């Protein structure tokens, strides 16, 4: 009849210390390719609207006339990457959430 067999696990946990890191003092470096947010290089965008057509969550709206506008609703995005794959000019990318935003033109 084996009792208290959890104690070995408890002792080894006490010895090895906590597995959690003390964020935000020591944040973990993100893995390359982590999908956190969508960024666009506006200089390359031709406002074709391909990304808006492929988005499953209707997060993107692109208008050409009368003004060229690329609108992104971040809370609707599901980070699937369909827009990134289908953009003909490759101006979209999914980067880590804490990566700096590319500097806005103008």
């Amino acid at each position, binding site marked *: 009849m084996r*009792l208290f*067999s*959890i104690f070995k*696990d408890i002792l080894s946990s006490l010895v090895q210390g906590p597995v959690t890191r003390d964020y935000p003092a020591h944040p973990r470096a993100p893995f390359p*390719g982590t999908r956190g947010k969508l960024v666009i290089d506006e200089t390359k965008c031709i406002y074709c609207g391909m990304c808006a057509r492929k988005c499953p969550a209707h997060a993107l709206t692109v208008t050409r006339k009368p003004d060229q506008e690329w609108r992104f609703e971040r809370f609707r995005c599901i980070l699937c*990457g*369909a827009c990134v794959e289908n953009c003909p000019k490759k101006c979209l990318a999914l980067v880590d959430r804490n990566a700096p935003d590319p500097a806005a033109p103008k």
Partner: protein
Amino acid sequence: MSMLVPFGPQHPVLPEPLQLRLELSDEKVISALPVIGYVHRGLERLAEQKDFIQDTYLIERVCGICSFIHSMTYCMGIEEMMNIAVPPRALYLRTVWSELHRMHSHLLALGLLADAFGFENLFYSLWRIREEIMDAMEATTGGRVMLGSCCIGGVRKDIDPAQAQFVLEKLANVERALKRPAEVLIGDYTVKQRLVGVGVIDGKKAYELGAVGPTLRGSGVLRDHRTTGYAAYGELDFEPVVEQDGDCYARTLVRIGELRQSIALVRQALGKLPDSELKTPFKGNPEGEVAVRAEQPRGEVLYYLRGNGTDKLERLRIRTPTFANIAPLLTMLVGCNLADVAVIILSIDPCISCTER
């Protein structure tokens, strides 16, 4: 004199809302009536309004625990309808991610089962191991839960040798860290008192009631859809895990056995990754009807797809394993004590978001 006690939908032990109306006499359950519908999203109907490529991203989100296998089964269905051959490397990568999902799902289920009988220390020990697998998934695909890496015709991302090495290191950590919690779960006297002989269902009854997955394999009936050889399972060797007793303890042993087997399967698959392209391009729209099945951590999942030549599917039907396991659950609950109800429900590993889609 019988008493009606509603178990759920808000219960500290349940991961998802499920209500069971229990009719009790003293402490014994006489009958149970399931009431579901708290997380019904109508995904099957929504899938008819998006085109079949966008549906890949929608189907992933049916469930968070088995999400990759949902999208893989959907892609297998569309590929069968449109006669697309998947390249070998993609088949192996799909197997790797499916098995990673199976591991993290079983660890989740075992942790919640430990929580059901109050053993929170064991619950946290098991979920601590799960973090290694989540890191492995994030490093290879960019997402911890929603991988987004399966697409029609193959996979979208590759695992390069450095990432494969990282995954193998994580697996070694998992194997080492699993030893002590598994010993506790299998051998400790107090755990066995709560699990052995509780929620017994015999193999024939389970089969007739439509049970699938560890619920069926824990009762002595060998049905594991992976033995049919879809994805790369035909080229990897593994033995399905079967136990005979049909109680919660047997189902726990099945899950621990499958965990160890999944570690071996991922190592085999990463060792044998062939070189080929990642996806086959295709044109056209799906037409016809097809029914495909795969083995999720909780059992067999069935996808029925019907296309009519347009880019939107006419019907998408998903029958998830927990849906099939509800009927055996009602039989298992008859005659048990009220304190065992939580343990029995969690031993079938309920995933209600899958059940109600």
